[in-house]
C-alpha cells in the first residue's frame, strides 16, 4: 500500500486495521545470487539499489538481531558532506543528494531535515582547519561557509559566545544543507522498499562462517538458521566486520570502539540546528520529539561492550554545559553505545577483498549514517558489476598497503 495522507485517512476510517506488513517475514532459501551480511542502513540500502537499479532481486540480507538494531538505530543522525578531501566530498555529497529525495524515492518519510550543521572553532588552529575545509568545499561545489561568533549566536541562540569562557568561540563553519534524519525510518524505508522488490530480509540469522571453494572464492555462508549458498557476499557489519572477515581469513585494518550518545528529556523547541565542537568534544541537536541529542568521541579503549564508560559521557556533558549553559538543569533520559569500526584514516572501505566474490563495506566509524544512501548505492554498483562505482573507487582496502590514504582526521587532530 502506498503511503500518503489519503491512505492515512482511509485507514483511520477502517480503524487502522488495514495496514499491510511493511516487509515480508522471509525464511532463508538454500541459495541466493547475493548475500548481504548485516541489515543496518547500509546493508538494506545496498539490497534496495541492487534490486531497483541493477535488477538483481534474488538477494538475502542476513541480520543476527533485528533490522536497523546496530549503529543505524543508535546514532545521532548528523548528516553533512563538508569533508576535506575530494574523494570524500564526492562520496558524501552523492549521499546528501540522495537524502534530498529519499522520502519520495522510498515513499517513506525519513524526515531528512536540512537544519544546518555548525562546527565551532575555538582556537587559531581550529580556525585554520575550518578555513581549509571551506576552501576545499567551495572548490568542490559543496556549501560550507564561515560565520562569526555573532552570526553563530543568531543561528543558534542557545550558544554561549562570551569571550571570557575557557574556550571562546572564534567562529564556525556552517553547512546549511547539513542536518539530520530519522534513523529508524531509514532502515525501515529501505527494508520496505527492498522487500517489495523481492529481497529476503532474514532477521535473527547470525552468520557464523564464510564458506570458500578450494580455489579460494566464496561459496556461501553458515548461519544460525542453516547454510546459505551464494557466489557473491557483501559484508556490511559495522563494528563486527573484522570478526566476519576473519571467517574468510581476511584481516581488516579496523579497530572497534564503543561510541556513546545520550538524550535529555523532551522539551519544547530550543534549538533548531546541529552544533558540533571537535575541540571540546561534544555535539548537540534537538530531535523532533524535543529531546536534546548529545554525543562526542569514542571511548578510549577498543571493546565490543556497548556499555561505555561514565567518565566519557560525563566529559561530553561538561562540554555541553559550557557551550549551552541554559541546559545544565535539564536531565539525561537515556544513554547508550554502539560499536564503531574505525580505520586508520577515518575513511570507509568499500569494495573488493583479496577473496574472490567477497566484498566489504565498512570502516564508517563514527560518521557513516550520513552516507547511508550513497554507500548503499555505490556498493550495489560494485556488487552488481564487479567493479567500483567512480565514487567508491578510491576507498579500497588496498590503500592501506599502497599508502594512498584519505585521511579525514588529518587536518583536525594533529599537533600545533
Amino acid at each position, binding site marked *: 500500500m502506498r503511503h500518503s495522507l489519503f491512505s492515512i485517512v482511509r485507514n483511520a476510517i477502517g480503524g487502522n486495521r488495514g495496514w499491510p506488513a511493511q516487509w515480508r517475514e522471509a525464511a532463508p532459501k538454500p541459495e541466493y545470487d547475493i548475500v548481504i551480511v548485516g541489515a543496518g542502513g547500509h546493508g538494506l540500502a545496498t539490497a534496495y539499489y541492487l534490486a531497483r537499479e541493477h535488477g538483481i532481486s534474488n538477494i538475502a540480507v542476513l541480520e543476527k538481531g533485528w533490522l536497523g538494531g546496530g549503529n543505524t538505530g543508535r546514532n545521532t543522525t548528523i548528516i553533512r558532506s563538508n569533508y576535506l578531501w575530494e574523494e570524500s566530498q564526492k562520496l558524501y555529497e552523492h549521499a546528501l543528494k540522495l537524502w534530498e529525495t529519499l522520502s519520495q524515492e522510498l515513499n517513506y518519510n525519513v524526515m531528512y531535515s536540512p537544519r544546518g550543521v555548525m562546527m565551532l572553532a575555538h582556537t587559531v588552529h581550529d580556525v585554520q582547519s575550518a578555513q581549509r575545509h571551506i576552501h576545499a568545499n567551495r572548490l568542490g561545489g559543496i556549501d560550507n561557509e564561515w560565520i562569526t561568533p555573532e552570526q553563530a549566536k543568531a543561528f543558534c541562540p542557545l550558544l554561549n559566545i562570551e569571550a571570557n569562557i575557557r574556550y571562546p568561540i572564534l567562529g564556525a563553519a556552517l553547512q546549511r544543507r547539513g542536518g539530520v534524519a530519522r534513523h529508524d525510518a531509514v532502515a525501515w524505508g529501505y527494508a520496505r522498499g527492498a522487500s517489495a522488490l523481492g529481497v529476503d530480509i532474514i532477521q535473527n540469522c547470525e552468520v557464523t562462517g564464510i564458506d570458500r571453494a578450494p580455489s579460494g572464492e566464496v561459496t556461501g555462508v553458515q548461519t544460525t538458521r542453516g547454510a546459505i549458498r551464494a557466489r557473491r557476499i557483501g559484508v556490511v557489519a559495522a563494528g563486527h566486520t573484522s570478526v566476519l572477515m576473519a571467517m574468510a581469513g581476511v584481516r581488516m585494518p579496523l579497530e572497534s570502539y564503543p561510541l556513546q550518545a545520550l538524550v535529555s528529556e523532551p522539551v519544547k523547541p530550543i534549538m533548531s540546528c546541529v552544533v558540533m565542537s571537535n575541540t571540546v568534544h561534544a555535539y548537540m541537536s534537538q530531535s523532533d520529539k524535543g529531546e536534546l541529542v548529545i554525543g562526542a568521541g569514542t571511548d578510549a579503549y577498543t571493546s565490543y561492550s556497548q556499555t561505555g564508560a561514565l567518565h566519557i559521557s560525563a566529559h561530553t556533558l561538561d562540554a555541553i*554545559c*559550557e557551550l549551552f549553559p541554559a541546559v545544565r*538543569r535539564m536531565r539525561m533520559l537515556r544513554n547508550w553505545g554502539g560499536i564503531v569500526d574505525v580505520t586508520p584514516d577515518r575513511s570507509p572501505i568499500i569494495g573488493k577483498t583479496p577473496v574472490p566474490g567477497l566484498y566489504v563495506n565498512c570502516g564508517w566509524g563514527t560518521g557513516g549514517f550520513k552516507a547511508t544512501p550513497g554507500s548503499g548505492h555505490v556498493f550495489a554498483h560494485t556488487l552488481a558489476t564487479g567493479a567500483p562505482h567512480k565514487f567508491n573507487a578510491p576507498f579500497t582496502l588496498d590503500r592501506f598497503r599502497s599508502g594512498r590514504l584519505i585521511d579525514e582526521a588529518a*587536518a583536525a587532530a594533529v*599537533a600545533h
Partner: protein
Amino acid sequence: MTQPFRTEAGGQIDRSRPVRFSFDGRAYVGYAGDTLASALLANGVHLMGRSYKYHRPRGVLSAGAEEPNALVNVARDAARSAPNLRATQVELYEGLTATSQNRFPSLGFDLGAINDVCAPLLGAGFYYKTFMAPRGAWFKLYEPIIRHAAGLGRAPVAPDPDRYANRYAHCDLLIAGGGPAGVQAALEAAPSGQRIIIADDNPGFDSATLAGFANVTCLPRTTVFGYFPHNFLGLAERLTDHLADPGDRARERLWQVRAKQVSLATGAIERPLVFAGNDRPGIMLAGAARTYLDRYGVLVGKRVVVFTACDTAYAAAVALHRAGSQVVAILDLRDSPGGPEVAAVREAGIAVYPASSIVGTQGRLRVRSVTTGAGLRIACDAVLMSGGWTPSVHLYSQARGKLVYDEERQFFRPAGPLPGLRCVGACNGDLPESGGFLGVVPGQRGGPAFVDFQNDVKASDIQGAVAEGFRSIEHVKRYTTTGMATDQGKTSNMNALAIAAQQLGQPLPSVGLTTFRMPYTPVTLGLFAGAARGELFDPVRQAPLHDWAQAAGAVFEDVGLWKRARAFPRGGEDLHAAVARECRTVREAAGLFDASTLGKVEVVGPDAAEFLNRLYTNSWSKLAVGRCRYGLMLTEAGFVMDDGVVARLTVDRFHVTTTTTGAPRVLAQMEDYLQTEFPELKVWLTSTTEQWAVIAVQGPRARAILAPHVSDIDLAMPHMSVREGRVAGVPARLFRVSFTGELGFEVNVPAGQAQRVWDVLWAEAVKHGACAYGTEAMHVLRAEKGYIIVGQDTDGTVTPDDLGLGWAIGRSKPDFVGKRSLLREDLIKADRPQFVGLLTVDPVRVPEEGAQIVPVAAPAVGSHALGHVTSAYSSATLNRSIALGLVEGGRGRMGEVVHLTTASGTIPAVIAEPVFYDREGGRLDG
C-alpha cells in the same frame, strides 16, 4: 484553608507545619513531608498534566519514580527552573511554585486536545507515511508544526547558577534501595564492620535501626542510576531541592562508587490494567492510593471503585474503607479471588465482583463513572487498579545480568547472582503470590486503552505495529514509542510485551525484552559536569612567565591547554602592527620569547641513543655529547608526527624537545613502544615540560644580552650545541638553537626561577633595543626561514621527503618507526604534494591559509586542487606577503604561476623555494 481529602490523623507528614505552595498560579496548603502530588491530592486536585501526543487530561498514576503523567515544572526563578519533574517526587517546601506543562492556554482547557479528536489519523508511526510531498515541505512546513506540538516542558532560559558536587567512594557493600529488604541487608552486614552505603531515592527511608552503625552511610534522596562494569555505580544525591532556602549549598552530588559487593533491593513496581479509558484523572494504581493514605494521610477519592487482578489491591481497598472512603465495588478479573485480603474485604462489607472488568470510563477532567463488562455504570471519583507487580530489575539488567521469565508469576526475574552482585527482596522476584494480569483486559468494546500513558501508546497501536511487521519488541518500541517516555516504560513495558506476544501468537519471552539503559531515572546534566565549568572546565596551563606577559599587555591564545602570549601590542597597536614591530625588532636587535610550553622529555639510560634511533628518523649514535640535532618522529604510517631539537647531555642522557601540543602524544608513543615493542632496552623516560622554563633569546644582539649574565659557559659555543652552567646565577641548560634564523639561544632554567632569570635578561635586553615577542611573530619569523610547524604545515599525511626533510632520515639505520611505510608506492610517487613557498603576484595581498591551489584562474566547480596554502603572513622584514604550501610535484614547479582560491575567486602566485630570507644561513652566526 482546608484540605478536603486529608484524613484526621495518620501519615508521616508533620501536621504542625503547614506549607504554602502554588500550582498553576493557585495557592494551596499542604504539610511538611508532603510531595507535590500528595498535597494536591489532599486538596482534591487530580488533574496534574497533559499527555504528550493527544494532550489528554491526566492525573497522578503512581506515588513514586515510575510516574508517567504528573510531570510539572518547578521554578525558583528563571534560571533555576526545572521541567518534567515528577510531582510524586517533588518535596513540598514553603513557597514552592509549580506549573503544569504541555498545554495551552490552561491545564483544564487545552487547545492541543484537538489531537485527541484526530487520534485515528495519528496512529503509531503515522508520520512515516505522510508529509512527503512536495519535496522539501517536510523541513519547511510539516516538521516545524510537529516540533512545536512536541516536547513536554520548557527548558530554562538562563544559565543555571547552582553548584553540583562530586564524590568518589569505595565500599564493601552498596545497597540500592532502602525498603525492608535493603535495610535488612544492611542490618545483616553492619555488625561485621564492613563499609556500607545504602541509598534510596525517597526523602527518608526507614533507617533508624541503622543509625547506630558508624560504618553505614545512609543516603536518602539518592538514586542509584547507573551500573557500570566492575561494580562501578553512579548515584545522584539531591541535596537542596526540598529546601525553601537552599543557600549556597550544592544542589546535587554525584557519587561514583566502586563497590566490592552490591545488593539490589530496588523493589517492584505495580502495573496498570489496560482497558478503555484507563487514563482519566482519578484512575491510579492501587498501591499508590495506599501510599497516599499511609504516608501522607490523603484519601484519593470519596467514592472508589477498585479494578484488580491482584490481591494487594484488596488491602488498599480495606485501608481506604477504614479511613472513610466509600469503596463501592471491587471488580476482579479473576474468577474466584481468594486469600486473606479478600476475606478481609468481604468482612468489611465491600462488594466484590469476580470475573468482572471495566470496559469504559466517563468524565472529562476527572473520572465520574465506570462501565463494567456486565454493562453496569458505577459512579465514582477514583478508580484503583492493579495488574500485579513487576520486579524492578533495571540495574541488574544494566549490570548485564540475564533475566528469566517466570511463567507462573508472569514476570522477568534475575537469573541469579553475578560476581559481586545479588538481588534481594521484591527486586529478586521474591514477592508474595498475589495474582496479576498482563495485556488487554478482555471484553473491550472500543475506546482508547492506554499502555504507555505519557507517550499515549494504546493497545491498538501495539497490535497495529505487529501487524505492520514490527515483530521484535525493539521494533514495536521504536515504531510506537512505547517505553520511550521519561519514565522509560516502568509501568508499561510488560503490558506492551504481552500485547505484542499475543498479537504474534508467541510466548511472551520469545518476543524479547528491551534493553534497560542508564539512567534508572533522569539525571541532571549539570551533575555530570560538576565543578568542571568556567575556568575549571579544562585546566589552564600557564607558562612560568605568564604573569609577566599579562602585565606587559600580551594577548593570549589557547594552544592545547596552554595560554600562550600571541603578541605584545603597545600603545594602541593592533595585532598586525604589533607582530610587524616584533618581527623587525628581532631581526634588527633581538627578542625574548617564552618557549616554555614546548614539550620536554628526558631520555636516560645505557640504551637511550638506540631507543631514539628507533623512535626518530634520524641517527643518534654519533651525536656528540654537547651537540643538538633536529629530530623527526613519524607515525607507523610513515607520516610526520612531531619534531623538535634533541640534545645529548651525556652519553646516556638526552634532552628531547617536542611541539607544545604534541608533548603528551610523543611521550605516550615513546612509552608505548618502550613497554610493548622494545622492553629489552634500558631506558627511562621522564616528562620535564613543567620543570624547565625556556627563555629564547633571538636576534643579532642575543649573545650580547646573555654575555653579562653567563660566566661559566663560553658563548662562542657552536650553533646546535648545548652547555650546562649558570645563567643569572641560576643553574641552566643553555642551547644554541634558532627558530628565527637569527643568532639564537634558548635558556632552560628551573621553572621556579624563571621569573628571576627573565627579569635579569629583560633588563639587559631593553638596553639593546630588544622586545618581547609572541607566538604570532615566532610564526612569521620561522616562515620567512621556511621552518615548518607540525600540525600547520603538516596534517598527518605528509612525509619527511614531502617537506624537503629527506636529509633527516638515517638511511643506514636498520629500522625506525614508520620506515617500512615510507617505501609504500604512494609514499614515493613523483607527484606527491611537496612543501614550497608561494609569492603572490600582488605582494600586498596575503593569501588565506587553507586556500586551495589550482592551475587556472577560474577553476570549474569540482576541479582538482594541486594542494593548499598551509601558512601565510605579511612579512614586515621582506615588505611583502609570504606563504607556504603543499603542491603536487611542487619542487619541480619552481617559478610556475598557480592560483590561490579566495572567498570570491582566485589570486595568482608564483611557486618559490620555501626559504624567503637569508637562504645562506649567515645570520645564524649573528
